[in-house]
């Protein structure tokens, strides 16, 4: 597609449930990023992929959070045993040239996750 696509756009889940959030990057972009954004805050880094491998996962808050990108394109962010504090907008972005140096990242519309 023309841009970064994230599905679903909204997700409401009960505390303790498992959720998966999907990101389709711009075709050919090798770098893919996940961020989390709370209301009125800047995007908080979670994880960054170069191709299929996680180049930096230092932003994942705990072991309930996991992300994969098995074929170097689509990525899935997985959250186990969700907590109310996980409620936020989860943003995905992709970047060409491996995301190096001056290449900008293009963002999707985000998935708004609400844990009740």
């Amino acid at each position, binding site marked *: 597609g023309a841009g970064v696509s994230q599905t679903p756009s909204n997700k409401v889940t009960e505390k303790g449930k498992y959720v998966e959030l999907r990101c389709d990057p711009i075709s050919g972009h090798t*770098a893919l*990023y996940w961020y989390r954004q709370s209301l009125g805050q*800047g995007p908080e880094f979670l994880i960054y992929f170069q191709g299929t491998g996680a180049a*930096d996962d230092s932003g994942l808050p705990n072991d309930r959070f996991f992300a994969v990108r098995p074929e170097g394109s689509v990525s899935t962010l997985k959250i186990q045993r969700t907590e109310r504090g996980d409620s936020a907008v989860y943003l995905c972005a992709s970047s060409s040239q491996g995301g190096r140096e*001056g290449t900008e990242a293009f*963002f999707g*519309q985000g998935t708004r996750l609400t844990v009740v």
Partner: protein
Amino acid sequence: AQSVAQPEDQVNVAEGNPLTVKCTYSVSGNPYLFWYVQYPNRGLQFLLKYITGDNLVKGSYGFEAEFNKSQTSFHLKKPSALVSDSALYFCAVRDQGGKLIFGQGTELSVKP
């Protein structure tokens, strides 16, 4: 460690007046700096970037930004603000590992 600071939570400007949204950064090595805009319930949209060269960078929608190495700043500017410019603005820096680090954002409000 790389970081970005946006000292103003909110900037208020009258339509037609010039606007400035401030950003300072801390990096080791060459800075790669970006500005993004976010409209309500939307994702972030890229505005402009500084990589190297001319300190005045021009971007989308009439915005520009001035890179100042001695002051470690990258302020966003526009000569004449529009009501439609009202949005949340984020400054970001790319760290040596490749990820973007964002500031906390500045809410720009342009009144008619």
